[in-house]
């Protein structure tokens, strides 16, 4: 049976309106509600289902981020992960942390924890990088099944259905493997009350990137963060002819 490592990132809740800081150095995070990246919830759900189907022996949730990331880890534990590892990254280091850093941490932890399957969300809804799974697979030199919308156990390993531009692609992969979860992989559960209570007592280990020998030196500098352009107000046209004329005028057709 496999041991599954799941990456969970703490991001601004998707129901919250994002505001850019006045100095354009980033977005306002103080006093703003955060929760688990929705794609990571799907990853956790998949890992927990693997355990429920007795395909996995243990589910370990990992989060790299500030102290509050532990809340995100508690949510993963309440959903059914067995234990958690918090790799504390805070302040300026967190601001410039990129998928390459997270991938290095996940790769190192996979070895240390003897994990055979790493599942992460296909992207985080804050930075939208979509790189962590791929980089982790490369660093470990494991196969990868990205944008998974279905994961099944087969004799030699796993069969992964991938969502690609043209439709669906089915691949077979050996274990160990890195998987990234797409939206349709599953519908994550709500943590139930008894499990929320139990999660408070599950083990949560704290590490630093230094403990893992990962250098977090910044590789990028944020020059400016700006609001997307405001959508222009629409107008109502009386009939189809006017619509067509307007579209032509605007050079849209």
């Amino acid at each position, binding site marked *: 049976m496999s041991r599954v490592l799941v990456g969970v990132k703490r991001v601004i809740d998707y*129901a919250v309106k994002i505001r850019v800081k006045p100095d354009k150095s980033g977005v306002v995070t103080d006093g703003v509600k955060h929760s688990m990246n929705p794609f990571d919830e799907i990853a956790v759900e998949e890992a927990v289902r693997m355990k429920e189907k007795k395909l996995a022996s243990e589910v370990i949730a990992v989060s790299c981020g500030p102290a509050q990331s532990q809340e995100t880890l508690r949510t993963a534990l309440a959903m059914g992960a067995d234990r958690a590892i918090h790799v504390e990254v805070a302040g300026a280091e967190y601001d410039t942390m990129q998928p390459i850093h997270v991938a290095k941490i996940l790769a190192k932890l996979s070895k240390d924890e003897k994990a055979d399957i790493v599942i992460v969300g296909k992207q985080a809804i804050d930075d939208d990088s979509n790189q962590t799974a791929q980089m982790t697979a490369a660093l470990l030199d494991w196969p990868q099944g990205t944008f998974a919308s279905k994961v099944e156990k087969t004799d030699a390993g796993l069969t992964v259905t991938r969502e690609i531009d043209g439709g669906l692609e089915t691949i077979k992969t050996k274990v160990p493997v890195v998987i990234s979860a797409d939206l349709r992989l599953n519908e994550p559960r*709500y943590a*139930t*009350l*008894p499990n929320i209570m139990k999660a408070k007592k599950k083990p949560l280990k704290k590490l630093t990137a230094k403990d893992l020998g990962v250098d977090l030196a910044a590789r990028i500098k944020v020059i400016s963060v700006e609001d997307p352009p405001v959508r222009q107000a629409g107008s109502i046209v009386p009939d189809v002819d006017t619509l067509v004329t307007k579209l032509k005028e605007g050079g849209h057709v």
Partner: protein
Amino acid sequence: MRFSFAIQTLSSDIPSKSIKKSEMKIYGVYYSQLIFLNYVLEKYKVIRKQFGNIQPSDIDYFKTILSEDRVLTDENDVLPFNIDWIKNCRGQSKLVLKPKSTEEVSRIMRYCNEKRLAVCPQGGNTGLVGGSVPVFDEIVLSFMLMNKIISLDELSGALVCETGCVLENLDSYVRERNLIMPLDLGAKGSCHIGGNVSTNAGGLRLLRYGNLHGSVLGVEAVKADGTVIDCLKTLKKDNTGYHLKHLFIGSEGTLGVVTKVAIHCPALPKAVSLGFFGVENFEIVLRLYASAKSSLGEILSAFEMADNDSISSTVQNLKLPNPISDYPFYVLVETSGSDETHDAEKLTRFLDKEMESGLIIDGTVTSEPAKMQTIWNLRESIAGAGLIDGYVFKYDVSIPLANYYSLVPLLRQKLGSKAIKVYGYGHVGDGNIHINVTVPKYDQEVCSMLEPYIFEEVAKLNGSISAEHGVGFRKPHYIHYSKDVTAIHLMKQLKQLMDPNHILNPYKVLPELT
């Protein structure tokens, strides 16, 4: 008299399987089955009163007050204003006016009063008792263009705005300034603040912030004769004489037209959590309420319940996720406070205690906004979900808590297989239950089994036949079940005083004027 009416043009652009909040606009009425009967009209043989008939010269006059595009006469343009949200009522108006200012409203009213033209004030048209649509050919006065925010005092929380501001827009606006609207309801994406005031809407925050008679600071209204009554103070205290604003709160457009509203917005709670629990029976819902009141105290901001049929129909009909498994009753508990740690501690203690005691069998609790939204959305969608089954008889009653749920099993028994479902859900904290009876299509027999039976039962239990939705067109004949004759008489005297020609929202609220 049965109406037939083609509304293909409308129904074609409406998705046939789901009602999302965004679709609940005027055009977003869910037309699954086109039942346009006005059974009140039939049953009580309501006849048109001696009002003036709209002449071309009247329309010309209105065009001098309003720009041409704000005078709607085309049948297709007027149609949506004639049909109410639950498609119970359909009027026959031929004219919609869309004023942009108090001055325009005043001029329209003065003219209508002189010409004895009847007027139906309409806000977001989400009212559930047929009050917002005309009965015959009353002129629809739509406030959709009176939607400006006038001022907000961030310290006192006093918001002043025009009547047609959509509740959800106001809420977003004040939230950005760390305030919150004192009311919230499932129709927030469409209903207007003026409509809320005119119906004294209750909703989901009433337990915490009280009703609009408390939070509305001031009202500007136009009387039937066009006089502008300025009670638009933003003061919390103003004991100078009679509190006239109350005449416009909850009078459903029969005493005057609300044009501006000043309302008190409380501070935005910093910490909000939501629990959704499954429990075994209604008795336990009440015990849990008692426990929540004492354990959560000042942070308890909502206590709602729904029976199994309410939730399962909503989940099935609208394809919404149920965050927990199947239970006979569901309870939703919201806390709002200013300190996350403090609130979480209290909530955890409450949950620990009641899971231990066995009152809560299972459930989930979250303070993540997106998850809270999903749960609230499930609760708020119950109101519309039944429409997918065909036709819904909806009752909104107050019943003292001990008997709060007792009518639902009674009705189930009485109706048997005649109903698809009979379910109850509502604001336990306010003693207000919504009872819905769904049937494949409107059925006179079912109707007469329900009414006046249900009102008689409510009266016996010392309840109110209309807790928050009002009387509108559907219930004037039943008002006596909840109001004393002397009170009804005083209501009529007030009507006579304020609208002597009875042109404002006729056939509504008051039983036949004698």
